[in-house]
């Protein structure tokens, strides 16, 4: 806790002088130009939106998949099958992010292009599926990035959920079976209510990772001159990827401060996500 406070304070102290030099609205501007330190104009709105949308999209995919896998492994799969399968999922967590980034850009991106084109042509009237501001053929879209992120956070959500589901008290399960519950009804009346809080906090952990993921997104997301238009097929940058790409600018404390300010917002964002997860879990304690 003290450490977290100290880090927050460090970021704040470094950021304040640069914020004073910002000629644009820091929270609501979509511009980002810090090259000329005498006239810096930068705002985080686009970074914020791209970060949140890609992470949320990733979570939307990963949550149900992880839930399905965790339930399958703990409730349905025979032990012989469950062990190796769980091991493979855990192994995914050990793959370095840079590998995920390369895989996303060179393998997944091209594979997803036809799907993306189909979505744009048939569901393009929905802003999320509208034609984006980068070339879809290159695959460097939020769509690709979100799916890669989903794969990256899948192991942690699955592993934690699996552990929680496995800990469903035997007597509750027996109670449900004795009442004439089918397998699925046992899951619904005992395993899910018991594991819900753990599953949600596991997902929030995953969300935290997705929000902060740097290398993979730096590689995948195509840079774009235009601002985020609410489409999954837009490119852009997240807080983390923007900061990572800006390393050459860090020699000047004024422009470095701008990035630190952006980092501070990311820091607060992940903090809020964590606090939300804690509140959700605490809300469920009463019943345990």
């Amino acid at each position, binding site marked *: 806790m003290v450490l977290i406070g100290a880090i927050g304070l460090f970021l704040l102290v470094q950021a304040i002088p640069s914020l004073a030099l910002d000629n644009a609205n820091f929270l609501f501007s979509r511009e980002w130009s810090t090259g000329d330190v005498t006239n810096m104009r930068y705002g985080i709105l686009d970074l914020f939106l791209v970060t949140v949308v890609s992470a949320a999209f990733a979570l939307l995919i990963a949550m149900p998949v992880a839930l399905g896998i965790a339930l399958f492994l703990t409730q349905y799969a025979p032990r012989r099958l469950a062990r190796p399968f769980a091991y493979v999922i855990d192994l995914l967590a050990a793959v370095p992010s840079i590998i995920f980034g390369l895989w996303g850009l060179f393998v997944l991106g091209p594979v997803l292009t036809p799907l993306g084109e189909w979505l744009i042509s048939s569901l393009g009237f929905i802003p999320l599926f509208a034609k984006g501001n980068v070339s879809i053929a290159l695959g460097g879209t939020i769509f690709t990035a979100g799916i890669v992120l989903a794969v990256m956070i899948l192991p942690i959500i699955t592993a934690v959920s699996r552990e929680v589901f496995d800990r469903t008290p035997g007597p509750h399960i027996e109670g449900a079976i004795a*009442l*004439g519950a089918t397998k699925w009804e046992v899951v619904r009346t005992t395993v899910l209510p*018991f594991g819900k809080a753990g599953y949600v906090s596991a997902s929030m952990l995953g969300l935290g990772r997705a929000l902060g993921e740097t290398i993979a997104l730096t590689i995948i997301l195509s840079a774009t001159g235009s601002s985020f238009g609410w489409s999954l097929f837009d490119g852009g940058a997240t807080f983390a990827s923007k900061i990572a790409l800006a390393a050459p600018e860090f020699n000047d404390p004024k422009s470095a401060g701008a990035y630190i300010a952006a980092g501070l917002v990311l820091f607060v964002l992940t903090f809020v996500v964590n606090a939300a997860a804690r509140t959700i879990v605490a809300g469920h304690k009463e*019943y345990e």
Partner: protein
Amino acid sequence: MAKRIDVKDLNLFYGKFHAVQQVSLSVPPRNVTAFIGPSGCGKSTVLRSLNRMHEVAPGARVEGTVQLDGEDIYASTVDPVQVRRTIGMVFQRPNPFPTMSIRDNVVAGLKLAGVKNKKQLDEVAERSLRGANLWNEVKDRMDRPGGGLSGGQQQRLCIARAIAVQPDVLLMDEPCSALDPISTLAIEDLITELKKEYTIVIVTHNMQQAARVSDQTAFFNLLGVGQPGQLIEVDDTEKIFSNPTQKATEDYISGRFG
């Protein structure tokens, strides 16, 4: 509707382990039968074979027949889920569903059976809680979680949950072993009342309890470690406690009493 149970040549296994050997006994309707015997002799195992809970354990296997009013519950056409809906079970440790309210706990079985009508569910909840002598204690907090009750109340909640579906038979596995003496008496009184409507089989390690609540007693024993448990004798409770035919029964009963 209370039904009779007829068990014939029952052998029960956990994987390769032969847990119970060659049990045959009958339980008449509206009767309380107590299973007594030393720990590990297979009382719970036999009890759990009566509502097809035995097979829930990995590798568990059943040989022999169990009939409910003449119908074999192990026939290949019978769905175990349906069997469990007509034979209620109460466990050693009270196990209300902790995330459900008291009301939802009581009607959980009915909801599984597809009953949705709120008025009907409320009526059943009240009737079952009255039947379990718990209504007066919980009627003002039906929406509170069932986990918040005392141990004795939780066990009566579990009994209410079991009788809410109006089962043919009620199985109880040491229902009082986790309870204080006052709650134990409350449950024993309840069993005597429930006997008017249900066929009841109760496992107990407490011989006074068997003598107090049961009409018929079955004594199980273990010939040695690793050997299967056996039914030594089954007879009217009065006879078992005053004049058993088997020496082992007499030893066990007098040993515990003396």
